[in-house]
């Protein structure tokens, strides 16, 4: 390696065939800090001749070797996972992808498929020096059937762009997430992304009509039908939906769009406790029923982090000033006004919050705080919810919504809230929910856990983590633990934000404690974010050994050399 460098420096004009070979000290020969895997010994190293071949195949502008340019593609959105790829390829067509994969398979060069690089479990970035196969060059919308709402698009199309396109035809995409401005549909399908409207429009397993996938050996598997029903043999596309790019590279997606709702109503609610949140959700399911389209929650720590870290974002409820007396005001004569700001009912000894009878307009939140004995200085939780309805008839929807709101307010489960009166107001309510992840990221490095749990126990995990951090790391008062997520789907996003950066010490306190807690409550260690690199070693917490063995067999069958996205999801360290 030392010799090679001298040779290179002295004879720059002479092309060395080992130009891309890494030296012994290169990080690619070290053990991965996250998963303890080492670079698979059967994989080849990139040679200049390989790069030349890719340039001839794809065109020089679609081959990136510049280290500076590669930096952002080598690192994930959360800046937690850092790869060391020396090469990014940007194919323009499925044929390109097929040729590239055939070549890589032949040469035993591992690749990592990458869309918008918005994944949250390190699944879209290299672990060592895997070649990054970017779909960002494949952004064509191939077709849209107005009568059925079936959209066919290349894998690199950004979700927001697709939604804008189908809006013009009176449709919406069946999924929506905070990353919609950057994430690509291929990645969405590969991760079986959930998002903010799964409650109403279902999972991608149901809304994807067809796929075009390139297999490890370059074979193009054309499953791109736009039929709603097609029971002809094994439904192969289901294998690739959620496989996180480990079984094949998705190059095109056929997806069922939904008619754009004529009436969209959004409400922002403040609840005194998580139990109240669950009650509101239950009432929403019965009273809003078929028009309910989203039910999200966030705790007070999320609200604070968002207001502190991001400009121009504020709690829509702080100005109204009619909070604690709200439920009384509904029944009271017009003209009575509450004087306290913010929902305030707290009981430091229980986590279920106060009963309806203790709403008093003279309650002083500051006195309640002093009785909290928690070493981490975190007050008993208060919660907010964003609820949205989609329907075809505004008057009908507004009538149901009014009845629902009156019910939850009179039962005391909602202390205060507001209804969006324009799309701008609706967007700003959603904005609060959608930027929590970013705000946490600005406050510190984030340990992110995406969990499925029975709704009744969901927030107990957040409290358990807070207590564990307080007892194991009492000197770390700066660590922020917060919970939010798709409460309507039983999906919690638990974030632990560490201002000083990722640290082994913190990680060891959190894991496997969190996974064990989840296993103990029969939950899932990954509701929608996937396994990626982050949880590749933790599958046993949610799946049986037998199930994992069957997954490994499928992987071996479809990718015998293990060149597509190795080290992720179901991974066995090669001997």
């Amino acid at each position: 390696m030392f010799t090679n460098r001298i040779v290179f420096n002295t004879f720059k004009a002479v092309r060395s065939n080992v130009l891309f070979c890494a030296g012994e000290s290169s990080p690619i020969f070290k053990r991965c800090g996250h998963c303890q895997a080492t670079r698979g010994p059967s994989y080849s190293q990139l040679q200049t001749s390989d790069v030349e071949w890719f340039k001839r195949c794809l065109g020089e502008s679609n081959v990136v070797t510049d280290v500076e340019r590669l930096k952002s593609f080598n690192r994930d959105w959360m800046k937690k996972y850092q790869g060391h790829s020396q090469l990014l390829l940007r194919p323009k067509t499925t044929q390109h992808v097929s040729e590239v994969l055939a070549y890589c398979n032949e040469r035993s060069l591992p690749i990592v498929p990458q869309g918008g690089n918005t994944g949250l479990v390190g699944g879209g970035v290299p672990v060592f020096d895997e070649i990054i196969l970017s779909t960002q060059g494949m952004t064509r919308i191939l077709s849209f059937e107005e009568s059925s709402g079936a959209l066919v698009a290349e894998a690199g199309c950004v979700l927001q762009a697709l939604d804008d396109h189908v809006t013009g035809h009176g449709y919406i995409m069946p999924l929506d997430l905070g990353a919609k401005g950057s994430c690509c549909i291929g990645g969405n399908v590969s991760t079986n992304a959930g998002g903010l409207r799964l409650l109403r429009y279902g999972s991608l397993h149901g809304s994807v009509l067809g796929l075009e996938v390139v297999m490890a050996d370059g074979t193009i598997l054309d499953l791109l039908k736009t039929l709603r029903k097609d029971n002809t043999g094994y439904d192969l596309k289901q294998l690739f939906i959620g496989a996180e790019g480990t079984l094949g590279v998705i190059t095109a997606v056929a997806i069922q769009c939904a008619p754009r709702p004529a009436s969209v109503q959004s409400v922002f609610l403040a609840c005194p406790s998580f139990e109240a949140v669950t009650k509101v959700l239950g009432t929403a399911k019965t009273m809003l029923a078929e028009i309910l389209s989203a039910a999200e929650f966030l705790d007070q720590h999320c609200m604070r982090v968002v207001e502190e870290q991001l400009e121009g974002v504020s709690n829509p409820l702080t100005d109204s000033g009619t909070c604690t007396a709200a439920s009384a005001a509904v029944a009271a004569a017009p003209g009575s006004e509450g004087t306290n700001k913010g929902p305030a009912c707290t009981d430091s000894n229980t986590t279920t919050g106060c009963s309806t009878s203790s709403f008093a307009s003279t309650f002083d939140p500051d006195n309640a705080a002093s009785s909290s004995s928690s070493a981490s200085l975190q007050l008993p939780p208060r919660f907010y919810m964003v609820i949205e309805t989609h329907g075809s008839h505004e008057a009908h929807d507004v009538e149901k919504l009014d009845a629902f709101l009156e019910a939850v307010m009179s039962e005391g489960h909602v202390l205060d809230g507001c209804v969006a009166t324009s799309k701008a107001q609706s967007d700003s309510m959603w904005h609060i929910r959608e930027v929590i992840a970013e705000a946490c990221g600005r406050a510190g490095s984030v340990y992110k856990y995406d969990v499925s749990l029975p709704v009744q126990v969901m927030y107990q995990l957040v409290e358990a983590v807070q207590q564990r951090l307080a007892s194991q790391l009492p000197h770390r008062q700066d660590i922020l633990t917060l919970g939010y997520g798709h409460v309507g789907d039983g999906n919690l996003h638990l974030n632990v934000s560490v201002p000083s950066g990722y640290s082994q010490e913190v990680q060891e306190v959190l894991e496997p404690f969190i996974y064990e807690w989840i296993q103990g409550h029969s939950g899932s260690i990954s509701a929608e974010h996937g396994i990626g690199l982050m949880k590749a070693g933790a599958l046993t917490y949610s799946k049986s050994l037998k199930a994992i063995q069957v997954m490994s067999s499928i992987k071996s069958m479809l990718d015998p050399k293990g060149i597509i996205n190795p080290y992720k999801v179901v991974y066995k360290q090669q001997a």
Partner: protein
Amino acid sequence: MKILVAVKRVIDYAVPVRVKADKSGVEALLPKMSMNPFCEIALEEAVRLKEKKFVSEILAITLGPAGVQDVLRHALGLGADRALHVVSEQELQPLAVARLLAAVAKRESVGLALLGKQAIDDDSNQTGQMLAALLDWPQATFASKVEIDTSVPSKMRAVVTREVDGGLQTLSMELPAVITADLRLNTPRFVSLPNAIKAKKRQIEQLSPDSLGVEIVPQLRTVEVNAPPLRNAGTRVSNVAELVERLHNEARVL
């Protein structure tokens, strides 16, 4: 002092629109209607003036067919004390609106009329100005700041900062007056749930143009509506020399 706030129900400003095939107007891609954003700002200002005790009663008024009432529910939820609906199935152009508002302002002995500077559907920017002329009141349009001067109790004045092309202009005028709100005057609050629920149960007073003694005669006819010309896609240039050459010869900005 009583304040009159006129609010208009328009296509929600965030909804994409396109020109109708027959070029007679625009159509919304989503059937979402809301209060005109500038009217919302005017109403928010009225509520703030009431919170500062300058105003005793806020009259929210809207004009049009039956369906426009929900904008008054919003106004009541935000803090209006009374809601008036001038019912008319006919097309209401700015002059007719100004005449109707003038009649109401006189009848209710209003001390200040607060309007949005323009509606986002027709962008006329005329009603406030015409209203002031009909009432012979001073006017301050494009207001970005409103202060009430009560130093002489019998002669209340409004001190208004306006956004004009050259910068900011401050006017002082005796009340009653007409003020139209611009974007930076304030940020409207959300309507809280308890207020929204109360607002649904409130009465809306209905008036007819005849009872106000106003005849509605359209003065303007829309000839044609066209979409703005499409922007050409950007092109890449290979070096600075080419950029300069194209800025000079094609874009003609150098």
